[in-house]
């Protein structure tokens, strides 16, 4: 019996590791599903309040993956009260993000602290970290394959991801990853107390330049009864984006120099 225990334990550990690796590989496949050097998009954010009233924001986002580091520039076009606001994120060598925001009302560039990452992104249901999470490394979380489930007629892996960084805004994420497309059809987000606080759902997908792309996404905040839909109006992969876009110069002037 004493010989079996370590073997059993070893077998269970191996199984567990295999399952974790399998879950991690599913997540990696999902997050790395679309390979592109750059992504340029124009999106409409429709913010729905509890009473059903809506407000909209129109923004452009330019992202570039250079040498494994992600850079992202978001430019708000509408409404007039936020037009000209720009937000720059640059991944550092250590894996953290340097972030800056340009506010036209202040006419200056300011850094954004990571502690503000859980704060709402310009009044939407997305936080700053949510906006940056598209480039979140699969290795930042510990993944576990929970089950298989059919969601809206799509067979999905259901994977639970627990961030290794206890300071991350969420204590747990549960993702429904479509088996055929590897798209995360639904993600439930749990706060640090383990309460299910937000849900991300894919509403629409289209083929763009040979890549199946979610073109409508909704983030719902359960306790508030609010939601934000992001509807992509333009999206281009591998469109040339000058390096000068990802600089404080562009942040403050909106001009590529």
């Amino acid at each position, binding site marked *: 019996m004493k010989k079996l225990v370590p073997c059993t334990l070893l077998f269970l550990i191996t199984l567990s590791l295999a399952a974790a690796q399998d879950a991690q590989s599913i997540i990696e496949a999902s997050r790395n599903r679309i390979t592109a050097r750059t992504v340029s998009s124009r999106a409409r954010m429709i913010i729905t309040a509890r009473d059903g009233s809506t407000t909209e924001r129109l923004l452009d986002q330019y992202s570039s993956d250079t040498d494994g580091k992600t850079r992202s520039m978001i430019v708000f076009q*509408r409404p007039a009260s936020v037009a000209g606001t720009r937000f720059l994120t640059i991944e550092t060598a250590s894996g953290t993000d340097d972030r800056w925001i340009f506010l036209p009302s202040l006419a200056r560039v*300011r850094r954004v602290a990571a502690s503000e990452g859980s704060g709402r992104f310009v009044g939407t249901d997305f936080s700053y970290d949510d906006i940056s999470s598209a480039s979140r490394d699969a290795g930042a979380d510990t993944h576990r394959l929970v089950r298989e489930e059919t969601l809206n007629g799509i067979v999905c892996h259901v994977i639970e991801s627990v961030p290794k960084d206890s300071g991350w805004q969420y204590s747990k994420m549960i993702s429904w990853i479509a088996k055929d497309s590897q798209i995360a059809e639904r993600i439930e987000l749990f706060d640090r107390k383990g309460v299910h606080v937000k849900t991300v759902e894919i509403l629409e997908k289209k083929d763009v330049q040979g890549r199946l792309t979610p073109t409508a996404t909704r983030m719902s905040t359960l306790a508030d009864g609010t939601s934000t839909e992001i509807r992509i109006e333009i999206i281009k992969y591998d469109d040339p984006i000058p390096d000068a876009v990802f*600089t404080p110069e562009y942040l403050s002037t909106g001009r590529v120099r």
Partner: protein
Amino acid sequence: MKVRDILRPGALLLCLICVASAGAQELPAFGFGDGADDVPALAPAALPLALRLSGQAEAAVTVYADEVDRFNKALSYNAGQLFSGSLTFDAVSDHAEASIVLAIDPAADQAVSIDEGFVRSYFGKLNLEAGLRTLTWGRVDSEGPLDVLNPLDYSDLSVTDQMARKIARPVVKASWPLASFTRLEAVFLPGFEANRLALDGRWAQAGLADLSAQLQTGASAAIEATLAAMVAGGLLNPAGSPEQVAAFYATQESLANSVGTSLAAIGESGAAVFFPDTERLAYAQYGLRLTTTAGSHDLGFQYFYGNRRNPAVSVDQASLFHAQINPLDPESSTIAFNPSAISLSYDRYHQVGIDWATVLAGFNLRSELALNLTDDLSGDDPKVANPAVLWALGFDRSLPANLSLNMQGSGSVRLMHDKLGSAPLDAEADSSRTESRLISRLSRAFFRDELELSFTWIWGVEDADWYALPELRWSRADTEIGLRAGFFGGSRLGALGQYRDNTWVSAHMSYFF
């Protein structure tokens, strides 16, 4: 206000709006390439001429507590014009852009005025711009020591927005990106304007307010002193014979007439008459600024040569009024006001400064440090301010429960303070070596940032005074409604405490387009 005063700028506005509407693109161009080439574009897609019209319309009212603290007073309250706004016209092309910002305020001397207007051209990597401009140097949120290019309007302290306080100035600016995160800027300002201060009314600064009345009081004292000297010298006798009494009062009237004539130049201008003409090259200013990013730290280094924005005032009380006594004919004696006894100047200075911003342990840190060197390098020139070290340090941090805290300390330390008073009539005599101010702002957002409640508290450390500003703001899309109030307290001798009677409440409704 005459009809033509409204029609003329109104016609101009209408033309500008029509032109902007005719040529306007709905949105800026998207992207930087056509997506078909693998060769990265070196420049954005060529920008055709785009005209954009934007602006703000606001209805606002401000009520001062002492205007409505009695029923009868409240009935007499004048709510003013309620409306103000701004229009911004931007013309953008591949190699240049121009911008005009018009301020619209029916209550102002000019209903429509130019707030800013400038042209910017791009020559390769060189950016060149010139015109009437509001610029910001430095990193801290407000009134940092390195933010030297634009004067501030302190004529109404109920205006708390830092950008709204800035006064646009003629400036020529060149900037050159040396690297991705490094930029060099050079500025030249052909003239100078000091911080704008209220010389009369409720926001008048102590010492500047009602200068005419103060001089009249001084004149009365000078007349009494002169008469006393003449009586003591036996030239006049107010208790003597009827002829002597008549001579005394005739002399008194003559002295009053002569000093009144010499004070006539002050008139309604008050202290303004003593301010020098600074819109001259003699007051030109220039500076250089280098900004860069090193790792997770943003740095700035700057040099500036210009004029201190607050005047140095020196008053020779003993020489303010000059009496000429005629012993042979006392009734022809005169007293004259001596304007040269009041010295008001803007000291020239060199500034060397550095600023730094980073994120540390969840704190957004910002700081500035500057050395201002005036001509008074020995510290004992009574008419020139001593050199000083200026500093500012601030941070903001998100707190639990959706709270946000922003704090900033700033101040100055006078160098060679021990040399003050070694010369008579030192402009800085009897003032503190240090001047410090602490600003704290605590805010909480509700309903997904639509509603914000904030409380700002400004504390003048050495003056022992304060200014409290609670505010409630609701915003949705392009609309904003807000309610603000201001309360002053502390020492009445302080820069803030002197306005203790100016408690105010303001409500506004704004639309941004």
